[in-house]
């Protein structure tokens, strides 16, 4: 370093080689011997630092904002591509989504897949309650009401137990593909422990139970809004 001034000061401060984490009493006493600074100096110092670093953050935010939005869109597209096969659509699924309300009054954003102007499938986010909080899933349904695919987007389930709902940890979630409200019948849309036909995981029943219920609600949502969802005239 060319910082000669700093070096000299450093010696003056006489910091011992091993005094890395020594209590800083010495320094404190030095301060007391100095002339007392007027009180507003401290406020001024703090204000200047706040302004300076605030500006730095604003600049960074400005520079990264667009990239961050683009990454979010990429994420969404990746999850949409997993639940809607490329063969059934020729449009940009994430463009021009439909905004509806589900049975509980929550907003649901529905993405539509179209081929030659006709809606061939829809995808939307559903959520279930797991062992430790909400499980968010993306679900794709074709125009006949059959499941095209389901993928977990975010969850806080126990690693090694409940996280088997992720497609890269277990193929459990793939089992739902092709099913509909009538296949299996209403009373079989449960985990085996509750008399249904879906496997639970050893050591984790609450997670699959929440997921099965969420998917069933998702299918009911499709049934309720079928006519709106499949209407081709409001798709570009």
């Amino acid at each position, binding site marked *: 370093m060319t910082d000669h001034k700093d070096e000299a000061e450093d010696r003056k401060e006489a910091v011992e080689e091993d005094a890395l984490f020594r209590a800083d009493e010495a320094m404190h006493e030095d301060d007391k011997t100095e002339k007392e600074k007027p009180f507003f100096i401290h406020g001024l110092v703090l204000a200047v630092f706040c302004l300076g670093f605030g500006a730095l953050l604003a600049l960074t935010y400005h520079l990264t904002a667009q990239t961050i939005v683009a*990454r979010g869109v990429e994420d969404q597209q990746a999850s949409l591509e997993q639940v809607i096969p490329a063969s059934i659509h020729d449009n940009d699924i994430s463009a021009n989504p439909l905004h509806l309300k589900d049975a509980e009054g929550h907003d649901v954003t529905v993405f539509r897949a179209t081929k030659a102007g006709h809606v061939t499938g829809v995808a939307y986010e559903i959520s279930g309650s797991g062992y430790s909080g909400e499980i968010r899933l993306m679900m794709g349904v074709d125009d006949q009401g059959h499941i095209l695919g389901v993928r977990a987007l975010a969850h806080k389930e126990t690693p090694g137990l409940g996280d088997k709902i992720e497609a890269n940890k277990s193929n459990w979630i793939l089992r739902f593909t092709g099913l509909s409200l009538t296949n299996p019948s209403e009373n079989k849309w449960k985990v085996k422990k509750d008399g249904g036909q879906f496997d639970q995981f050893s050591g984790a029943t609450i997670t699959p139970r929440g997921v099965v219920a969420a998917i069933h609600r998702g299918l009911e949502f499709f049934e309720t809004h079928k006519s709106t969802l499949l209407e081709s005239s409001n798709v570009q």
Partner: protein
Amino acid sequence: MSNNEYFRIAKDGLWDNNGILSMLLGLCPTMAVTTSATNALGMGLATAAVMAASNLLVSVFRHHITYEVRVPVYILIVAAMVTLVDLVMNAYMHPLYKVLGLFIPLIVSNCLPLAHLEAFAGKRPPAASLVDGVFAGLGFTFALTVIGGVREIIGSGTLFSNAALLLGSSFKFLECHLLPADCHILMMVLPPGGFLVTGFVLVGKRMIDVAQGKEISMSGAHGA
């Protein structure tokens, strides 16, 4: 300052006064992210970047920061650096951000960067402070990765899984599968495993120090 002193600062950060292994600082992120070696490495490197930047900044401005407001200013600087890392990671290292994003803001509440600002960067010239920040950060990374590696091997049977996500596809060779699926001890990736493994790693460090004939004492440094 002589090279010898820089060497001493580096060795202090990496081993003698290692943030986790000697000072037991920053245990909250230690428990949270060490479920796999890759997560631990990513979190360690992010913390090291924050520590290097904040140490340098505080040292540069040390004559302008008055004693009375130094703590708020230090926290402001650490928080600003963390937000910066958060935004940059979200934009340019997105796959990793999806894994670690939740833990990055935790660096603000990690007392290790603050300890180094207060005890070192606030009193020393920029070059020494930068060296201190970098090596204390790397020491933190080293300790996290060791704990993460042990927990991952015992708990999930893998080592450095998803390393390609963090370091790029050329590091795919790091990913290994060590134990068959029915030999995992799940507890090791759950919170109790974090405490157990950290305890054993601490014992290991002390044993190495004793074997080298170093005196183990509860000095002021350990109480910091």
